[in-house]
């Protein structure tokens, strides 16, 4: 299985775009951040990649980067293309593709809420889900959700008789 010729041609027009087929009907493209909007526009205009399935964000804490993945589907080629870009974690800014794909409005707002990435030109960057939240963006890797949950919410201190018996015999719970 190889990348279909029309797609190969279009990808060849942009500088420094690496592409490979990862699974049946799945192509991975690694693009430079400045090339991505042009790439998506080319794909939409020439090869029928009309449907934006999702925009995902992955936080690579050690490398200090956010990876944004744009998944677009072409009905003509029956192919899903995932375009990966890496942006620096500080300041965490990128350009919006709302004018190209309207579904981006939801995903960019979601990524902004959860990761803190600012999209220039997005439909809206206001809170949608986390309107009662005043902590750091929760999906970042440096936010410890379990610690936060333990500090904010109290739980039942469950110590039944059978556990006491086990502890008396020398066993007990591991922490």
């Amino acid at each position, binding site marked *: 299985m190889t990348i279909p010729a029309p797609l190969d041609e279009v990808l060849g027009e942009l500088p420094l775009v690496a592409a490979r087929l990862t699974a049946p009907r*799945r192509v991975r493209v690694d693009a430079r951040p400045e090339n991505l909007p042009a790439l998506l526009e080319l794909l939409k205009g020439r090869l029928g990649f009309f449907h*934006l399935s999702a925009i995902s964000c992955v936080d690579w804490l050690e490398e200090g980067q956010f990876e944004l*993945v744009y*998944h677009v589907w072409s*009905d003509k080629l029956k192919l899903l293309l995932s375009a990966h870009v890496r942006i620096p974690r500080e300041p965490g800014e990128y350009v919006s593709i709302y004018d190209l794909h309207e579904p981006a409005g*939801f995903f960019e707002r979601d990524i902004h809420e*959860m990761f803190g990435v600012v999209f220039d030109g997005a439909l809206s960057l206001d809170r*949608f889900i986390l309107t*009662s939240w005043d902590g750091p963006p*929760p999906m970042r890797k440096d936010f410890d959700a379990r610690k936060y949950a333990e500090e904010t919410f109290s739980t039942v201190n469950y110590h039944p008789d059978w556990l006491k018996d086990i502890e008396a015999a020398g066993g007990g719970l591991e922490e």
Partner: protein
Amino acid sequence: MSDLKQIPAIPDPDAIEPSDVYDLYFGPNHPGIEGNYSIRVRLSGDRIIEAVADGGYLHRGFEKIMEERLWMQNIALVPRICVPDPVPMEETYARSVEMIGGLTPPERAQWIRVLMLETSRICAHLFTFGGNAATVGLYTNMFWGVTMRDLFLDIFEEITGARIYHIYITPGGVRRDLPDGVLDRLEALLDELERRMPQFEDLFFNNAVVINRASGTGSMSAEQALAWGATGPNLRACGVASDIRRDDPYLVYPQLDFDIVTEEGGDALARMMVRKGEVVQSVRILRQVIPRLRELKGPVRCPLPNPLAWDLPAGEAYARTESSKGELAFYTVSSGGPRPYRVHVRGASSMHAVQVLEHLLTGARIEDVAQIMFSLDACPPEVDR
């Protein structure tokens, strides 16, 4: 009857007097909202001039807690993302893990997965059937639909042990084989459903009130639906024959014979008719799956290491499924360890409950809000995760 549908054009917001404008909160405590969700509408008379969706009431931080659990433990979490139709969630997660790990479930497991998926599709549509009718005041449908669905939940209980959240489809296959006799019971139930379908149709689609309320309500053209990101039955009701089971097939769907149901019009009535057609097609698929499962023997899981010590290689996968609501996708990233590095859930309702709903509500009447939301089958837990 047609003159009732001559709704005048959307009033220009700048031309409306401020005293004619009224802001109303719809939800979250509202029977006309599907689930725990809220819409803020700005009204001029009973016409909506603007609508803003407000979610987050069901937010549990799924994507964060999935990163802290083992690959196998997440199967217990994942069905809870979409409450009415949990089986595609399990299947898509399992498939994304298999894509990363290079696993292929055995053939018998794939056929069983299709059985579960299509039965869950029937259950979800029967549930929506009732909810949709309730929005126009026809409550009998809810009783019929929910009770019929309950009989299918008995089949699920027999196979998996639970009615709603099965925790049955795991990476590598399914957890256990089908019990004896369940295929006969499922076939008898499908006969019963087919016998009752004319009654359901008569009650819902031959009803003049429903037809008058539903036709023309919340209508969108094919271009609008594609531009707004609508998928699933909402898109097929606009005449676009797009179905992931055909376009991006998975499991054993290429071997199955079924039609893609489309309708013209893109309004609430067309969407309900598409769902009715999908129930018929799901029954058709199940009637092909059941005999195949009777004759096919084999394991139902591929050999896996100890799930408590199972490291997946580094990689990523994007698995897509046609759930009853639309396109469901999981983007799973592994950094080579026992836990996922990132799981991103793309629910179909991420589009339907937010942007599509806001577009369709603009210009609608206040009494149609509930019907538009239910006909889009917007599922708030999928939006909030």
